[in-house]
């Protein structure tokens, strides 16, 4: 060993950066595909849940600022006078921003989508509506308005949409819960796939693991090598899946904007808004993808430790 030392090869001439777990294998590529697909579906689920939650908030915000005064026509009463009186009382009640009384024609117009155009509703006792916009922060403070109406227009009925809003909450909550359950199932499916892949990789790399063990590698070092390997695979798969999901939402948003003027587009827009995910939604996609990559690596580390425990 004491021979004359020749020049040490320059850095660029010495190949020395190869990971101890071979980076490319058929099983590895298959795992990337599985993770990409599951990440895509998980991001769609999460994004869909965010869209529904945001749309629900939007409906809630629009509706919850309004309350409706309904006046049913009764024989012998001048309903126009009652409406005018109720609107006058309502507009002066504390916390009310403004009160807009619908004319008879406007009230009948609301029924048109259900009864069709050209139906003569003149003889029917169509209730008259007054839409009351509350000032910000006064939504739950309806007692003064209720009291004022009770004395000035006893026939008026105040509807604060509480029942409808609670149904909306239940529906939105159910959709979000369903999405969360789907998301959890996908994570379990991915965990199972990663588990199989890790065991497969370890079986394929049994020789490597044994050699590493026998040349003095600690379990934590070997597990770290596999963890790094699976983190890279997970990052690649999750990156592809997350990018595809983001692209999907961008395309869906553009398509929704284009189709907005059609009847079907308007219905979808009413349900999901403009399909615009927003910064928080895209941040959620990045977060989901990163979490999946980290989860993949942690899971593989745990499995490798378990397998190594069986070796001496």
């Amino acid at each position, binding site marked *: *060993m004491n*021979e004359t*030392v*020749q020049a*040490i*090869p320059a850095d660029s*001439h*010495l*190949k*020395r950066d*190869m990971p*101890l777990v*071979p980076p490319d294998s058929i099983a590895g590529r298959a795992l990337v595909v599985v993770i990409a697909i599951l990440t895509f579906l998980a991001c769609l689920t999460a994004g869909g849940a965010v869209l529904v939650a945001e749309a629900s908030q939007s409906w809630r915000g629009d509706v919850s600022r309004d309350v409706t005064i309904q006046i049913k026509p009764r024989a012998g009463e001048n309903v126009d006078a009652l409406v005018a009186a109720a609107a006058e009382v309502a507009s002066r009640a504390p916390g009310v921003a403004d009160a807009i009384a619908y004319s008879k024609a406007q009230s009948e117009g609301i029924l048109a989508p259900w009864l069709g155009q050209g139906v003569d509703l003149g003889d029917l006792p169509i209730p008259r509506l007054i839409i009351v916009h509350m000032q910000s922060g006064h939504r739950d403070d309806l007692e003064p308005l209720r009291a004022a109406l009770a004395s000035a227009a006893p026939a008026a009925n105040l509807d604060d949409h509480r029942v409808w809003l609670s149904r909306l909450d239940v529906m939105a909550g159910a959709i979000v819960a369903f999405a969360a359950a789907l998301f959890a199932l996908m994570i379990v499916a991915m965990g199972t796939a990663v588990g199989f892949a890790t065991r497969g990789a370890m079986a394929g790399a049994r*020789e*490597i693991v*044994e*050699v*590493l*063990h*026998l*040349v*003095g*590698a*600690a*379990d934590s*070092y070997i597990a770290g090598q596999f963890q790094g390997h699976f983190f890279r695979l997970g990052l690649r798969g999750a990156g592809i899946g997350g990018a595809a999901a983001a692209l999907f939402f961008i395309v869906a948003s553009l398509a929704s904007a284009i189709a907005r003027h059609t009847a079907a587009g308007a219905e979808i827009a009413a349900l999901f808004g403009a399909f615009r995910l927003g910064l928080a939604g895209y941040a959620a996609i990045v977060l989901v993808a990163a979490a999946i990559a980290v989860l993949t690596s942690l899971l593989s580390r745990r499995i490798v430790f378990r397998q190594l425990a069986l070796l*001496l």
Partner: protein
Amino acid sequence: MLRFDNVGLRYGVGPEVLRDLSFAIAPQSFQFLTGPSGAGKTTMLKLMLLSLKPTRGAIHIFGEDAASLDKHQITALRRRIGVVFQDFRLLDHLTTYENVALPLRVMGRQETGYRAEVVELLRWVGLGDRMNTLPPVLSGGEKQRAAIARALIVRPELLLADEPTGNVDPSLARRLLRLFVELHKSGTAVVIATHDLSLMDQFGYARRLVVGDGQLRVFEGDPS
């Protein structure tokens, strides 16, 4: 350094394949482990490397009772042992340089810190021009030398070599064996498993551990 006391080994409920093994490997000693094929030489090396647990008896290594060691302690002890496998066990996706540097890499040493000594050792074993070559491209003799270099790179206190000259011609076998003699002279205890009698005869001073019928007989070497 290494002591076996009444060690026995059986697989499952089968008969004992090794029994009543009692011997010691002294520091800076040189010995051959020999016997017919299938007698249990490789199994004995595995017991010495603590990759097999005896079913009875006690193994003491570097002053520690092997039965009382946890995995961390076994790992630490293995770093003091160099091993040359019969089938080389080079990692095919790593270059010769990376394979030889592997024991230092798994210790967590920085590559810049060991590059010079790995390159020097590779040149010493005649693989200076094969550093970036992958094992599947190496000849049998080159693989053998790479495997030996990997065992020597940590300057082990104990070297275990399983048929290290089994796949090379007699001339190269003598040269490889001289590597072990050099290592022994520098203070390492060497155990070489072989069934090549002519090779052992060239080193008459070496002790012979002869395994056969599951038992071991020890023949001291002739100092002359």
